[in-house]
């Protein structure tokens, strides 16, 4: 029975359609796996009743024929997505007790397609973090370990619960969101695949906002095909999000031919960082060779402003966060501090926010407040937005030279130990996003594909960056890379 949870979405879909398995059976297998995986702390709000109801409905729909690909597929949903009547806290105490009266566009599209929700997944508080250590639920844990060393490792962040759950076969796929690398870094740390689509592909409506000009939802799944299937259901125009693109969504899965002959792949020289571990560099070189062997033309390219992406991000993202998170004031939803005699409304705001937000969120909200404050707005915020223009132009220039996709490492290291970065200053943690953050600033699609193991036996990922709106082509290049890399390793079960 538990073997059912190891199925990929495409395999499960085919088995469901053939009548070899029911969604009820798949769902029960996942619920059992989740019950046995408390040590991973991936699922933080379980919804077995909803799952069983949705599975029964999906089975009826499959029986009737013509069910969409995701019909009956059990998924995990990141806690950042508002789900009607189900706790949606963005892993923050300030949203303690919040149960939305509405459903996010992405989850409602998934449910319309027949997907089954197993529960809500752990993450960094308000998606601010790269290790899932800022969560109000405690750390999510990576199912992978360094050989026989039982030290607990981070699944990455912010979508750490999603990554852990998919890698440990607790669900067939999960939703993630990515503001600076929050889908791709955890995917790489756990040996799974995750794509952040072009900004505007997925509606942001009903997803708790962090930095609105950077946030995008995307799928995290066991392979490229599963990502294609999930992405198909997640994206599309939504009038409720003014930045949602009114563009046709191609049939992503049908574009997976694995044929990349004649494609041009760029290798950006600025991504070769000082002090980059040798195994990351070696993996990148192997990826280059794999794509070349598959018939792609490899060219060295330059993205000259790469170095400034992280500093620009750490102005823009906190600035937008300080504005977005102003809504948590203890008035309309979530936590309100107990007030003392004589406390007025300002004390209510200040105490509520001090109690409700964790340290990293407070830090970013205050940095954002500072860079937007009178006298500093031009020096910091406007300068960062100008640098962002230059970063985007770097990509436009190489695409104009005929580059179809760009190959980079996904992360500067394999998964690190939980607690290992506690003593470091905040900036050391920010460096995790050094290869991914440029993609958010430029609004491009990016995908992380597992491509090898570190010396310590941990998964390592490569990133492919595509042209805007060309997720289909990007997924196909990723598919070719996946086939060449042949990554099949799984964590051995200890939980």
């Amino acid at each position, binding site marked *: 029975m538990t073997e059912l949870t190891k199925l990929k979405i495409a395999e499960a879909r085919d088995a469901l359609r053939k009548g070899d398995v029911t969604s009820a059976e798949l769902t029960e297998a996942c619920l059992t796996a989740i019950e046995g995986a408390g040590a991973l702390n991936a699922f933080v709000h379980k919804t077995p009743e909803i799952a069983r109801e949705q599975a029964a409905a999906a089975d009826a729909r499959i029986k009737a024929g013509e069910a969409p690909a995701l019909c009956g597929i059990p998924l995990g949903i990141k806690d950042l997505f508002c789900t009607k009547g189900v706790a949606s806290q963005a892993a923050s105490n300030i949203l303690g007790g*919040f*149960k939305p*009266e509405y459903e996010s566009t992405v989850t409602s599209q998934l449910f319309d397609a027949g997907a089954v929700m197993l529960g809500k997944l752990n993450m960094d508080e308000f998606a601010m973090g790269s290790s899932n250590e800022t969560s109000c639920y405690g750390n999510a844990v990576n199912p992978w370990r360094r050989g026989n060393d039982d030290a607990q490792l981070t699944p990455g962040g912010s979508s750490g619960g999603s990554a852990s759950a998919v890698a440990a076969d607790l669900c067939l796929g999960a939703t993630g969101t990515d503001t600076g690398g929050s889908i791709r870094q955890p995917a790489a740390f756990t040996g799974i695949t995750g794509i952040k689509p*072009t*900004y*505007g592909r997925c509606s942001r409506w009903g997803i708790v906002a962090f930095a609105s000009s950077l946030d995008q939802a995307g799928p995290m799944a066991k392979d490229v095909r599963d990502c294609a299937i999930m992405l198909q259901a997640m994206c599309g125009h939504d*009038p409720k999000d*003014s*930045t949602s*693109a009114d563009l046709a969504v191609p049939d992503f899965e049908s574009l997976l031919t694995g044929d990349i002959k004649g494609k041009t792949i760029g290798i950006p020289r600025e991504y070769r960082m000082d002090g980059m571990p040798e195994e990351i560099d070696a993996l990148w070189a192997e990826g280059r060779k794999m794509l070349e062997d598959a018939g792609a033309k490899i060219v060295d390219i330059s993205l000259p*402003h790469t*170095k*400034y992406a*992280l*500093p620009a991000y*750490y*102005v823009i993202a906190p600035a937008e966060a300080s504005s977005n998170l*102003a809504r948590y*004031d203890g*008035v*309309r*939803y*979530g*936590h*309100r501090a107990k*007030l003392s005699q004589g406390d*007025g*409304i*300002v*004390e*209510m*705001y*200040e105490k509520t*926010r*001090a109690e409700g937000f964790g340290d990293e969120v*407070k*830090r970013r*909200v*205050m*940095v*954002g*407040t500072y860079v937007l*404050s009178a006298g500093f707005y031009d020096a*910091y915020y*406007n*300068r*960062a*937005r*100008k*640098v*962002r*223009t*230059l970063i*985007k132009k770097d990509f436009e220039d190489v695409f104009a030279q005929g580059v179809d996709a760009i190959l980079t490492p996904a992360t500067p290291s394999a998964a690190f130990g939980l607690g290992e970065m506690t003593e470091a*200053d*905040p*900036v050391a943690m*920010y460096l995790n996003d050094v290869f991914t953050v440029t993609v958010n*600033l430029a*609004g491009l699609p990016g995908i992380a594909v597992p491509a090898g193991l570190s010396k310590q036996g941990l998964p390592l990922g490569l990133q492919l960056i595509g042209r805007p709106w060309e997720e289909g082509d990007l997924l196909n290049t990723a598919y070719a890379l996946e086939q060449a890399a042949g990554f099949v390793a799984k964590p051995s079960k200890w939980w």
Partner: protein
Amino acid sequence: MSIDIETAARVAHLARIKVEEDELPALANAFNDILGFIEQLNEVDVEGVEPMVSVTPMRLKRRKDGVTDGGMADKVLSNAPDAREGFFAVPKVVE
């Protein structure tokens, strides 16, 4: 540009986050680490560069200015820490 304790306190108040006096030095240090990192942006020549407004070049959609929903005060209030008689309740704002 170095952030002193006084500036840290001012920013905390602007952000409406209560920070205890004894936590201010650590906060000021964290700000300085982050702002030190951000200072790199000063190396970039941004002369004549437009600040980015929208990452995807698209015209914002327009719709008819009309009522599209409403009449759900109970739902709007359902998550409020303190709601009374169809309103959000807060401490006294005006003396």
